[in-house]
């Protein structure tokens, strides 16, 4: 990979990499819809991967500050780098974009986000939606623009095995293209609980905004632009139906959504 910049969400970021870094491995931790180039307009900052100096200081750097140590060109290191790159993007996102801990898809024209903590079943639900023909927007980190619309921000789909994530290599699902921002019609706060049955309660706008606030991908960004962030969340919840509940099988959520349309 010779490019010195990648562009994502309308911003440019510098990228300094050692020649030894495999292209396929780098693409695992950079946003999947990044566009690489040799020129940048208004570069926000630079990510640098250092693996050549003393071993102790090897790692991924952002603006010369260590983000994460380098453990090798492996899956775990890529996972750590991916999440920290996403956090760095999120910290530079407001007022144009807000990052939420949420899966996001478009099923039959219905824009859906399903916020939740790690291990709440977002990836499983995303995969279930995709198997039923949904368009893929995100499985863990959903991006919303300043009008409250969903922006494609896909990462390599993951499947949890025990405590570890494994990337799903065979991706035959349809991914929303860059520029296809989608209105959000449904917000589903669904926690997985073995044996549970999905019988959700409908939330008011305020309750839903409050719960979305708890699912900000990068809470400190709120300090910079709270008014904008609240405005975006209000736009999301004002235009959507919002539900809260425990779910068992992911397929019952898909049935629920299809029953609404």
């Amino acid at each position, binding site marked *: 990979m010779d490019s010195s910049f990648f562009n994502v969400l309308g911003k440019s970021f510098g990228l300094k990499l050692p020649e030894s870094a495999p292209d396929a491995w780098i693409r695992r931790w950079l946003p999947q819809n990044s566009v690489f180039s040799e020129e940048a307009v208004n570069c926000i900052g630079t990510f640098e991967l250092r693996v050549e100096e003393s071993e102790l200081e090897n790692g991924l750097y952002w603006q010369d*500050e260590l983000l994460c*140590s380098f453990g090798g060109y492996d899956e775990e290191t890529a996972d*750590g780098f991916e*999440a*920290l790159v996403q956090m760095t993007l999120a910290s530079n996102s407001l007022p144009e974009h807000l990052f939420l801990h949420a899966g996001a898809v478009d099923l039959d024209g219905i824009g859906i986000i399903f916020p939740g903590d790690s291990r709440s079943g977002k990836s499983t639900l995303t995969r279930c939606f995709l198997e039923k023909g949904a368009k893929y927007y995100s499985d863990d980190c959903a991006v919303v623009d300043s009008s409250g619309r969903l922006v494609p921000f896909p990462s390599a789909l993951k499947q949890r095995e025990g405590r570890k994530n494994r990337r799903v290599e065979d991706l035959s699902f349809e991914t929303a293209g860059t520029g296809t921002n989608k209105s959000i019609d449904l917000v589903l706060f669904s926690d997985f609980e073995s044996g549970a049955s999905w019988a959700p309660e409908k939330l008011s706008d*305020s309750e839903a905004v*409050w719960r979305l606030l708890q699912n900000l991908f990068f809470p*400190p960004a709120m300090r910079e632009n709270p008014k904008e962030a609240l405005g975006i969340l209000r736009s999301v919840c004002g235009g959507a139906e919002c539900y809260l509940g425990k779910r068992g099988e992911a397929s019952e959520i898909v049935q629920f959504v299809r029953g609404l349309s």
Partner: protein
Amino acid sequence: MNSSQIPIARKEGLVIQEASGEVLVYDLDKDKAFSLNPTAAEVWRACDGNSSVAEIASNLSGSRDQEEKEKVVWLALDQLKEKNLIANEITSRFEGVNRREVIKKVGLATAIALPVIAMLSFPSSTLAAACPVSLCGGLGVSGGCGPGERCCPSTVIPGTFQCVSAFGLDCGAIPGTTACP
């Protein structure tokens, strides 16, 4: 106990959003968000600098007697004051009294939903390290952890500690780390 006191809702340094009878407030000074349920919101809105506690109570929605309504207003004011959402000094009716007991008594006696204020904090990115920085000796750019970094157990290199950019989060919430032992 003085219900002739006139509470004034703080408006400065706040971002306020209202919908469905509830109010969301963001405190720009403390970087905290508050969610006021309809009863707390109604009391807060009524703190206009003209109405006494007794007047706010008499205008409160619901059909209970004045005494019970005043207790509900004082429960709301108590929380609003604690969250720094009241601009002037007021002396709480329940000062020195166990609030849980009061809530139990008022809750049983009144048909009005009790006032509830939930709070969320939004951390800065410059908090102190969560594990002793000595555990990160030799790691990090300058041998310890730099500004905005935390020393956390690494999942990338199990069994080691590393300085990571904290983004205001705790070890374990930062990708590639687990909680401190």
